[in-house]
């Protein structure tokens, strides 16, 4: 099968999955015995006409099935409905918040993937030596720690007791965000040559992205270590070594390439975990991203926002997995695309 055929096939397979996702989100957000109309119209001070109008707008008076088809129809027109918490279209909210989350997850990946792989390699090469033990303990702790607790502890220690890192947000107070080109402050700052915002946004990224990436780093470290150990025991690596190639060449050329395959798969899958973790991390660091938006929407029972967020995340997640599968094929030519 050719690559593009495979991509098309995978994209087509997305359709039933996404329909399923809309059904799930729709059902769970409509079993809640809550009346968003009253809340959005101002709670106890709401005027009856306003409540009724909002109810009409949300089609709350229709049967569930009809409501669902209204929703699907809107989705096909790229209309996620209106967020009543923010009184604007959900798509607009998500468009605003997405870059912040994207920047955070990218930096979490930039911290966790190299550190995880490097740690794994060191751990494998120096098996049962001191550095192996230290890295392994960090790894085990990493995926045993609740991310919100880690975030709290780090925030408390590094932003309050020993205030060396900023407490919250993306930029220092008084700084104006760089002109929005990509929405990622770091990239925008570089593009517009604004050193102040560049350093400030990097400075603000340290704590949240480290927290978010910590568990991923731990997982990758463990993965890399065990697959390195496995690969290093295989015949072809032994052969390479027997041929008299230097240890460095053996590791870099032969062992690493093969050991990295499972690691890459896991990194791709971890993207989903990071988006989940963002809901907890962003709330704590007041990071103005999709995660914080989702947490607010869930607590405010903002139907449209919750559904919009979940669908967007599902799309991102599925596409990330597709990219991983393709990368997999590039790294390991033995993998045939679509060969199930």
């Amino acid at each position, binding site marked *: 099968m050719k690559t593009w055929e495979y991509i098309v096939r995978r994209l087509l*397979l997305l359709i*039933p*999955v*996404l329909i*399923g*996702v809309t*059904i*799930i*989100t729709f059902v*769970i*957000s409509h*079993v*809640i015995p809550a009346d968003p109309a009253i809340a959005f119209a101002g709670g106890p001070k709401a005027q009856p006409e306003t409540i009724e109008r909002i109810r009409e707008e949300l089609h709350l008076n229709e049967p569930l099935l009809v409501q669902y088809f209204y929703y699907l129809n809107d989705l096909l027109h790229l209309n996620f409905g209106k967020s009543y918490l923010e009184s604007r279209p959900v798509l607009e909210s998500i468009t605003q918040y997405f870059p912040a989350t994207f920047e955070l997850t990218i930096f979490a990946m930039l911290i966790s993937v190299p550190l995880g792989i490097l740690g794994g390699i060191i751990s494998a090469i120096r098996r049962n030596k001191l550095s192996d033990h230290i890295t392994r303990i960090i790894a*085990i*702790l990493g*995926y*045993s*720690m*609740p*991310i*919100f*607790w880690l975030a*709290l*502890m780090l925030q*408390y220690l590094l932003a*309050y007791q020993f205030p060396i890192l900023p407490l919250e947000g993306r930029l220092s107070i008084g700084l104006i965000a760089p002109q929005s080109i990509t929405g990622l402050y770091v990239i925008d700052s570089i593009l517009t040559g604004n050193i102040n915002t560049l350093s400030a946004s990097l400075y603000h990224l340290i704590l949240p992205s480290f927290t978010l990436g910590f568990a991923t780093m731990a997982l990758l470290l463990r993965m890399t270590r*065990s697959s390195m*150990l*496995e690969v290093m*025991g295989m015949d072809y690596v032994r052969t390479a070594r027997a041929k008299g190639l230097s240890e460095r060449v053996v590791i870099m050329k032969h062992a690493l390439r093969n050991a990295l395959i499972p690691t890459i798969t896991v990194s791709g899958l971890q993207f*989903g*975990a990071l*988006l*989940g*973790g963002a*809901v*907890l991390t962003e*709330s704590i660091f007041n990071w103005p991203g999709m995660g914080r938006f*989702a*947490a607010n929407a*869930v*607590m405010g*029972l903002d139907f449209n926002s*919750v559904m919009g*967020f*979940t669908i967007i*995340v*599902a799309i991102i*997640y*599925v596409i990330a997995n597709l990219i991983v599968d393709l990368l997999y094929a590039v790294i390991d030519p033995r993998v045939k695309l679509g060969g199930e």
Partner: protein
Amino acid sequence: MLHLFRRSLLSMIGLILILFIIFIAIFAPYLAIQHPTYVEVSTEQGTRRIEERWDINFQDKFIPPNSEHYFGTDDFGRDIYSMVIYGTQISLKICLMVVFSATIIGIILGGIAGYFGGKIDEILMRVTDVFLSIPYLILAIAVAAALGRSIENIMMALVLVWWPQYARLLRGQVLSIRENQYVEAARSIGANNWRILFRHVIPNSFAPLLVQITLDLGAVLLVAAGLSFIGLGAPPGTAEWGLMISSGRMHMFHSWWYATFPGLAIVITVLGFNLLGDGIRDITDPKLRR
């Protein structure tokens, strides 16, 4: 089995930690200083429900850890040490119930899908696709938000999120085992499908399943605590660790102990499960046993 554990110190530590936690859970009434009362109340649906109650004593609030209150007290003057101790019961209950139920559902559905194949398999796998296309924490949050705050509801939400992984795992196992010679042999002597499924296929999937279960116990605990932390899980007043961290967060600046100790309890328990899971994997996976 035990001698294998002995070879791996880390999994030994894991086992000890878990036994320690189970011990605390069982003997909580003897270890704790303060004790909750359990009151039966009627609910919306007219059914009765048991509620956990802790005595309030505002005079004793925010006492730092001392010889009387080992972990200090919280904003209601409740003894955090006792709450952490009783929290083990809730946490273990959540982990075990969720993973157990998810496993059962996964075994049944995954087994059927893998064994019979065809349309059933196709449909079931598409359904799991849908569930797995949403990051599990996000799905759990959405479901828990819809169900409302109670321990039972988070368990339900987590089961709903967790079963597809087991269905997938079991289906894969079944597919590989189905082609094995002994299954062929059983089939040729006329054993019926269910017999083959339960007698041959499932027992042979036991090892990977066990590893997955142990690791998931920790993962479930983390997600459940996360749900409680953002205010979706345990009802207020419960000695649930995530909830305690959540309330402690507001008082971090003057009462660091409030959020710290429940967090350490989570770390220790999850660490135990993870070490144990790693250990079981090392033991059952011959490739790694070197």
